[in-house]
């Protein structure tokens, strides 16, 4: 019998209009308790208006050893940044 509770990754939306951001992880026996634990661990200082939890094993991640082939080729391709346009002031933050 496995005695460890599964690991959950926690995502909190700080305010309406923003997207959920990863804030950390915790252990819980099931999804409902994970939300409750997230509420107690990560929102006790009024940090959020919405919580997502996902069991860590369901996340597929890149491997640190693939860093070279995955990310380095884009380093030298400055032309992919749309930095050559003048953005009108009234567009606001982009």
């Amino acid at each position: 019998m496995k005695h460890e509770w599964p690991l959950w990754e926690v995502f909190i939306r700080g305010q309406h209009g923003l997207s959920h951001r990863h804030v950390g992880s915790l252990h819980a026996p099931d999804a409902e308790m994970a939300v409750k634990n997230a509420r107690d661990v990560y929102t006790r200082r009024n940090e959020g208006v919405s919580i997502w939890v996902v069991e860590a094993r369901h996340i597929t991640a890149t491997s640190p050893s693939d860093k070279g082939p995955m990310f380095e080729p884009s380093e030298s391709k400055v032309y992919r940044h749309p930095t050559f346009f003048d953005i009108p002031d009234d567009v606001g933050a982009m």
Partner: protein
Amino acid sequence: MSADLFEFLCRMGDNCLILGHRVSEWCGHAPVLEEDIALANTALDLIGQTQLWLGLAGEVEGKGRSADDLAFLRDAWDFRNVLLVELPNGDFGQTLMRQFLFDAWQELMLSALTQSSEPRVAEIAQKAVKEVAYHVERSGDTVIGLGDGSAESHARMQAALDLLYPYVGELFESDAVDQAMVKAGIAPDPESLRAAYDAKLAQVMGEATLTLPDDRFAHKGGRTGRMHTEHLGHILTEMQWLQRAYPGASW
């Protein structure tokens, strides 16, 4: 009237104070980090509610006593909490069983108090009932999880229920103070909450596969101040020693 209201407010505040202190004893000792933080949050909510209830009690009494004076400078015979909340924590399961038995009552009581004819009571209830709605959800889920868990956790939760159920009846006791509150429209008759409470307990204990004792015998004496258990004095020595040893100390 104001003497009765003072008594009523002390009952509400002392329940929160003593249970809050009991739950805070888990800080740094809970079985897992997440539960440790959750219990500390609950304890802090209860201490926050204590400040409101005892603050108002001091105002109503009119002798210039603050919430701190009432919390730290009264002795055991002046406390008006029910016996349930002063009982020792036992194991984690016993603590959560006590919490659920109290939370389920407190949610009903506070919901009724949001309709109080005394606006300051209604205001405190409106703030506290949101906190307590979460407490009861959490403690109820934990009672279900552990009751309907392993053979070991089930046995411990059944033992906790058998131990604590005889302390439930006191929550629904009614005396002259309660009758004065009912007459003034300030608070409901405690007895009137029992049916809803029983329904909630039946539902949660059913899901938890735990058996509610048939016997309705109730230990009493806390909320009237007639007689507390021997445990209250020990809580107070720990809780009050600083103000007793260094009167008026602040930091």
